[in-house]
């Protein structure tokens, strides 16, 4: 699946977009854990939300391989 990274997560991952193909990652919580394994800096953040197809997702939400996932570190607009 396609994973977009924004703000500080883009710097931690080193690019704004990665592909991660792993059928075993069936929920947002699984994916988040895997990403933290791959990029341990993510653990240092105040918070890390996940959006699936441009909508905030809950930890238990299912994800599909063709979803577009985005990493949302603490927002600071305004």
């Amino acid at each position, binding site marked *: 699946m396609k994973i*977009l990274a*924004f*703000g*500080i997560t883009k*710097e931690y991952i080193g690019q704004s977009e990665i592909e991660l193909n792993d059928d075993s990652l069936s929920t947002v919580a699984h994916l988040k854990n895997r990403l933290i394994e791959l990029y341990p800096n993510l653990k*240092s*953040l*105040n918070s890390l939300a996940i*959006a699936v197809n*441009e*909508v*905030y997702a809950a930890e238990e939400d299912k994800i599909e391989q063709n979803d577009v996932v*985005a990493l*949302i*570190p*603490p*927002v*600071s*607009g*305004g």
Partner: protein
Amino acid sequence: MIKSIHLTEKPLDITRCREFVSHPKNGAEVLFVGTVRNHTDSKNVEKLLFETYKPMAVKEMEKVALTALNKFEIASIAIHHRYGELNIGEIPVVIAVGSSHRKAAFDACEFAIDTLKTTVPIWKKEFFTGGEVWVSAHP
């Protein structure tokens, strides 16, 4: 349900926001204008970079506007946000609310900026002399 949502790299137009929410039935307009400050705590800020996940940010801005329209007795709302590089004094955000009830207009405008700051995927990086930091990223 009159709303105007705008997320742009170009300078924001406060007058346009006000005129959007203005209507002969209203009587009260409340505006919030955010500007780039020259300091955070003790550090001198030189410029800011606003990054956004644009399609999602627009959706979340729409949600803020709809929630404000439903929650408060207001007639109209404009939420305009800028992204890209901004210098001191420039305007990242303008929120305008039109209502016939001034208290509702104040409450809705404050609600909208408070909610925007917690839900809309926009990130701010501050540039100091010899350093830069993503705002609020770390404890």
